[in-house]
């Protein structure tokens, strides 16, 4: 599982970075920088919470393909 942002939808609410500091931080303009690594199992619930909590539904948890 891996986190991906739709950059066009994202308008920098920053809630994902608050909810998942382990994997997400914000750049100087408030847009998320997401760790490239896979989401470790113990963080999946919180990652799902961050996905559901995004005010504009710009964050997605994707099954890694290939």
């Amino acid at each position, binding site marked *: 599982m891996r986190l991906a942002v739709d950059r066009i939808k994202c*308008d920098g609410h920053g809630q994902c970075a608050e909810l998942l500091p382990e994997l997400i931080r914000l750049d100087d303009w*408030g847009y998320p920088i997401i760790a490239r690594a896979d989401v470790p199992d113990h963080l999946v619930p919180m990652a799902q919470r961050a996905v*559901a909590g995004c*005010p504009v*539904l710009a964050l997605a948890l994707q099954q890694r393909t290939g």
Partner: protein
Amino acid sequence: MSDTLLWYTTRGAGAVSLVLLTAVIVLGILSALRVQAAGWPRFLTTGLHRNLALMTLVFLALHIVTAVVDPFTHLGWLTAVVPFSSSYRTFWLGLGTIAFELLLAIVVTSLARGYIGHAAWRLVHWFTYASWPIAVIHGIGTGTDTWSAWLLAITVICVVAVVAAIGFRVTAGSRDPLKEPRTTFQAAAQRRETR
């Protein structure tokens, strides 16, 4: 005896629902304004907004169930679903039914937001601004207690809170930092490119 208790509960739960709904709306507006402080991250505002919205439904359910079960008014379950179907205070209760159904739609679409998409969710969410005043008018119109000082005070506080929050929201404008650049860019691009 238990019938009067039901009736008091209806009135109490109605007042509590109004207060909760007001808090939900104010929190919603605060979250759109991206309010945050040390120890108060933004997700706390939206989390509380969500929790209180669900809680509002619970207390509305209490309000409605006690009202319907109350044998005096003899509302029947249909009243809870079909607006203006009660013989008792047809109009004012009908408003209550509408407000409740709008709210139910708002909560259900919010819970299913991931499936219906952001645009549809947002569209339904605008109904909040209809649901709340309808609920207030329902309270005043049906109002057993309308002119009691305590309910009057609550109603006034709620109205002031929501009006102030909406006022802030409108004057503050969009908190999306890209909103203005995007508008500018697209306007310029449309002028040049749609020819």
